[in-house]
C-alpha cells in the first residue's frame, strides 16, 4: 500500500517530496512505439469486439410464410400484367375490325364495281324480306334492259298488265 505523502513528510524534506522524487526519475512513461501500438490495437480490437457483440443483440424475426406471400403477390402481378397485355391486343383487334368494316361499307356509297360491292356486303347483313320479295321484279327489269330498246321498255313499263287484252285485239285487227 502506498503511503500518502502528507502523512510521511520524510526526514528533512517537505510533504510529498519522496513521491515527487520518485516521479522525477521517470517523468514520462517510456513506452516503445511498438508497445504503445500493441496496447492501442488490443484496446481497439476489444472495443470492436464489444461493439459487435452489442450490435449482435439486435435480431430480426422474419414473419412466417413471407416467401410464400411474396411469390403469391408476384404471381398475381404477373397475371394482371398478362391480362392487361391481352386486353390491349383485344382492343387493338376490335379497333382494326371497326376500321375494316368502315372500309368495307364505303364502296357501297361510292359506286365501285358490282362484284366488289357484293363481296364487301356479304356476311355483314342479311337481306330484308322486302328486298327478297322484290328480287323477281329486279330480275324482270334486268331482262327488260337487256332485251328491249329504251322506247319499247318505256311502253312496257307504262302499260298496265290489264291492258294486255286491248293489245291482243289490236294485233288481231292487224
Amino acid at each position, binding site marked *: 500500500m502506498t503511503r500518502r505523502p502528507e502523512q510521511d513528510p520524510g526526514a528533512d524534506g517537505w510533504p510529498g517530496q519522496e513521491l515527487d522524487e520518485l516521479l522525477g526519475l521517470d517523468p514520462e512513461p517510456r513506452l516503445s512505439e511498438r508497445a504503445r501500438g500493441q496496447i492501442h490495437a488490443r484496446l481497439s480490437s*476489444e*472495443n*470492436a469486439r*464489444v*461493439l*459487435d*457483440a*452489442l*450490435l449482435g*443483440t*439486435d435480431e*430480426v424475426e*422474419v*414473419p412466417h410464410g*413471407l*416467401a410464400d*406471400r*411474396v*411469390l403469391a*403477390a*408476384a404471381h398475381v*402481378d*404477373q397475371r394482371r400484367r398478362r391480362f392487361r397485355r391481352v386486353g390491349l391486343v383485344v382492343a387493338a383487334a376490335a379497333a382494326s375490325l371497326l376500321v375494316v368494316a368502315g372500309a368495307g361499307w364505303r364502296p357501297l356509297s361510292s359506286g365501285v364495281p358490282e362484284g366488289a360491292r357484293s363481296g364487301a356486303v356479304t356476311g355483314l347483313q342479311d337481306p330484308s324480306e322486302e328486298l327478297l320479295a322484290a328480287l323477281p321484279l329486279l330480275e324482270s327489269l334486268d331482262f327488260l334492259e337487256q332485251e328491249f330498246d329504251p322506247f319499247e321498255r318505256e311502253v312496257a313499263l307504262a302499260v298496265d298488265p290489264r291492258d294486255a287484252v286491248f293489245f291482243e285485239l289490236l294485233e288481231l285487227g292487224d
Partner: protein
Amino acid sequence: MGAWQRGDEQAFHELVEAYSGRVYALLTRFLGRAHPGREDLVQEVFLRVVKARARYTPSAQFSTWLYTIVWRICINETERDARRSVVSLDAPVLEDGAGLMLPDEVEMDPLEGVARADVIRTVRAAIAELPDAQRIAIVLARYHSLSFAEIAEVVGSSEKAIKSMIHRARETLRARLKPLFKREAI
C-alpha cells in the same frame, strides 16, 4: 437469376426463398420496427425484380443488385416518412429516442430480462439515430457481410467513402453505447 432469365420459373421461387428474409431484415433495421407495411415493401422489391428480369446483367452479384433496389425503396420511404412527420408534429417521442420506431420491443419475451431488453432498445435506438447513408452502410457490413466495394456499389459511392462512413458510424455507435460497454465486457 440467370436460370430464371432463361425461363426457369422455379429459379425465381428459390431466389425469393433465399432472399426475402434478408430483405425484410434489412428493411426492418433501416426503417425501424414501427414502419408500417415492411412486408409490402418486400413484395415491392421482388415485383421490381420481376419487372427488371430482362434488363438484369450478371455483371454484379445478385445480392448486390437486389440490395440496390432495397436501398432505393428505403430512400423513398425515408422521404415519405419525413413528409409524414412534418404533418404530424404532435406524435409522442420518448426521451431515449426509441419513440414510435421500436414498438415491438414491448412484445419481447419476458424471460429475456429487463436488462437485456434495455440493451437491445439502446442498440436499436443508436442505429436508428445514425444518418441514412451511415445506417445502411453499417447494417450491410455488420448484418449482411457485404464488403466495402459491394456496399459502395449498392449506395452508389466509392469504396474509400464507405470505409470512412463505416468508421464514423462505429465511432458514433461506440460513443452512444459506451454505458453498455462495461456490462458487456464483463
